[in-house]
Structure formats: C-alpha cells, structure tokens
C-alpha cells in the first residue's frame, strides 16, 4: 500500500498538469489554495503603517491626475466623448509568483470578489501600471504582471503618442529579464527617454488609457525591418511594489455619444 502512494500521487499530479495545460476548468482546485493558504499569506505579510496611507493617497492623486490629463487630451480630439469615471479600491501585495525562471509573472493582492474586484481589472502602483487581474477569489486576487506570458499591451510612446505593442520578450531583441520590449513602432519616431503609456482598451478593460508603463531605454533598429523595436525600463519594480489600486468600477457609466 505504502509503495503505491507515490506512483498514484505522481500520476494524479501529471493528470492535473495536463488538464491545466489543456485549459480544463480547475477553479475548485485553485480555490483550495486561495481558501487555505491565502489567509497564511495575509498573516505573514508586513503590517500597514503611515507610509502605506501616504502611498494610497499618492496612488489616488496620481490616478486623478491621469484622468484629468486624459480628459484634457481627448477633449481636444473629440469633444463630448465619454471617458467614464473609474473608481478603484486600494490593496496590498501579499505574495509574488515563485515559479517563473524569468522573474515573477504573477502577484497576489489582499482584495477579492467581496471588495468588488473583477477579472480583467487594471492594477496600478504609484509608479505606473502593474498588470491586470486574471483570477479572483473571495478574499484575494491574482494579477498577471505586464510582459508575462504571451500577452501584449497596446501602448503610446513619447509626446507624439506613437502606437506600439508591449510584451515581455521578443526573439530578435536581447534584453534583461526585468525589461520589456516594445515592437511594431513606426521607424525613427521614438528615442531613449520617451515615456510609454497605455493606449487604453475598449471600455477601459483591462487597461484605461494614459497609465504610465515605463521609459524607453534603447531603440534597436534591425536592418531591413519596416518597424523599430525598443527596450523599455518598467515603471514599477516588482521587488518593491507594495500598495496598489485596482480599477473596480464600470468602464462607462453613460452611453457613448455619436
């Protein structure tokens, strides 16, 4: 009996792994981790203090500035276009992903469904964009950080707002594990030092427009390529990210004007 336990558990684990890779719904299994080990993580996380309150205020003010700037920019382009109001809830990072070899791809926040958090909500730190919520438990939420996996983020670059796609890696560009890559840029339109902000998603989900993502550190001009590729220094250092805001509210509160 004892000799059979290990092979049986190994086979079960392999089946779970294959099912997860195949996209089978393993929500209940993941829920076990959230329900049992989530409280442990919140228990061992550092306690909040005065600096946390200041960070929360800082995020709220930065978000207000971003909203006003975005409204100012878009008013000139399309008067009457509705940008909606995006309420948020503040949260703390209680765990970092330990699996990825290229650095954390996910983080866990101490807010969940009961706090109004939904999947595909943007997560913003004082420095800029952290990522988007990919799974929500009752009391916690997992966030996929920008550049993780194969997902790309539409962004604007520099004062001219050159549009590109931000991702975690590009086979043709050498960069460090903690840097991001910006591809499909119109040639000779961006330079090192240019700020990168979100383009914005339909209905502002997952990403509202104008959130700072990072700064271009160098531009790679591949000979013969029709577009430029740039390496981006992320605005948020995952090693120090602590207090964040999750955009919880409805993206648009009134219907779009024609």
């Amino acid at each position, binding site marked *: 009996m004892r000799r059979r336990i290990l092979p049986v558990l190994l086979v079960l684990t392999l089946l779970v792994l294959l099912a997860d890779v195949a996209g089978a719904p393993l929500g209940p299994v993941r829920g076990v981790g959230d329900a049992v080990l989530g409280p442990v993580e919140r228990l061992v996380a550092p306690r909040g203090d005065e600096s946390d309150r200041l960070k929360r205020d800082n995020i709220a003010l930065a978000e207000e500035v971003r909203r006003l700037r975005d409204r100012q920019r878009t008013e000139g382009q399309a008067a009457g276009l509705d940008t909606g109001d995006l309420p948020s809830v503040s949260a703390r990072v209680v765990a970092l992903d330990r699996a990825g*070899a290229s650095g954390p791809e996910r983080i866990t926040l101490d807010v969940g469904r009961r706090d109004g958090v939904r999947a595909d909500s943007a997560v913003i730190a004082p420095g800029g964009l952290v990522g988007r919520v990919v799974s929500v438990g009752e009391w916690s939420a997992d966030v996929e950080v920008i550049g993780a996996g194969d997902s790309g983020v539409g962004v604007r670059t520099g004062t001219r707002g050159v549009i590109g796609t931000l991702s975690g890696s590009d086979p043709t560009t050498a960069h460090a594990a903690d840097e991001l890559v910006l591809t499909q840029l119109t040639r000779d339109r961006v330079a090192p030092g240019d700020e990168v902000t979100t383009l914005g998603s339909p209905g502002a989900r997952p990403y509202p427009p104008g959130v700072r993502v990072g700064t271009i550190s160098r531009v790679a001009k591949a000979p013969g390529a029709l577009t430029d590729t740039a390496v981006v220094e992320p605005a948020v250092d995952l090693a120090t990210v602590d207090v964040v805001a999750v955009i919880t509210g409805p993206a648009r509160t009134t219907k779009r004007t024609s």
Partner: protein
Amino acid sequence: MTGLRWPVRLLLLVAALVVVLALGTRGVLAPPDFIVIVVVGVALSAGPGAGALSGLLGGWLLDLAPPVAVPLGLSALGYAAAGWIAGTAHRRAGHPWWWPVPVVAVAVLVTRAAPILIDLASARPVAWGPLAWQVLATATLGLVLVGVVERIEAELVRRRWA
C-alpha cells in the same frame, strides 16, 4: 506511513513554505528555497521514495499558495524529481559534513529546470543572476539546516515515534 514521521515532515514543509512566503512578500524575489532544504533532509535520511513524496507534497504547497501556479502541478513534479535524485545520495553509513551542499544545489537546479526550459523555449530571458544567488544561498543554508532535519528524523526513529 504510521507514527509521527509524516505529520512532522508535513509540518516542516509548511514551516518552510511560511518562511518562503514571508520573504517573498518583503521583496526578496529569489528567496532561499527552504522547501528544497526540508526535502533534501528527508531524502538523505530516508532515501529516494520518501524524498520524492516529501518533494511532491512541498511542490503542491508551493503550487497552491496564491498566486496559484500556472500550469498547476509543475512545481510538484519538479520537487518530486529533486527529492528522488537527492534520495539517491542517501548513505546508510552517514555522509561527510559537506555532502548536503552539492545535493541541495543539484536539487534546486532540478526544481528550476522545467521553468528555465519553458522560458528558453519561448525566447523569454532567464534571470540567471537571481537563480545563481538562490542556488548559492540555499546550498549554504542547507549545510546547517539539512543537518537539523536529519537530526529530527533520527530522533523520531530513536524515540520509536516514526
């Protein structure tokens, strides 16, 4: 699987997980892998089977701790492999004092092999610096802590609690 041996091993794995989680939430991106240390301690005391089973349990704890791993079960299999390999270094007549250092280093590398291969296959840059630090720190701590786990295992046998 009678007596206190497996409850104590599970308790040690949970304690190791709590330390790893506490370090992670304080900004240590590549903390020393205390779970590997416990797994190697069990493996060097009881052989490949016990090492693989404790690795499987420790890997599942890591997989299920939020943020829940993607894909689920990959860490469990990696830690089980590490426990099995560490168990092959088990010596009935005892081992030299430095023995846990290379065993822990190899075990950490085995647990990281699958994520590294996945990242290399998808052209994602691997964070070699933090990985090297993690191997070095875990192996150094293993020099002391693996011995502690082995002492606990031996004490359970001596008191007939195993």
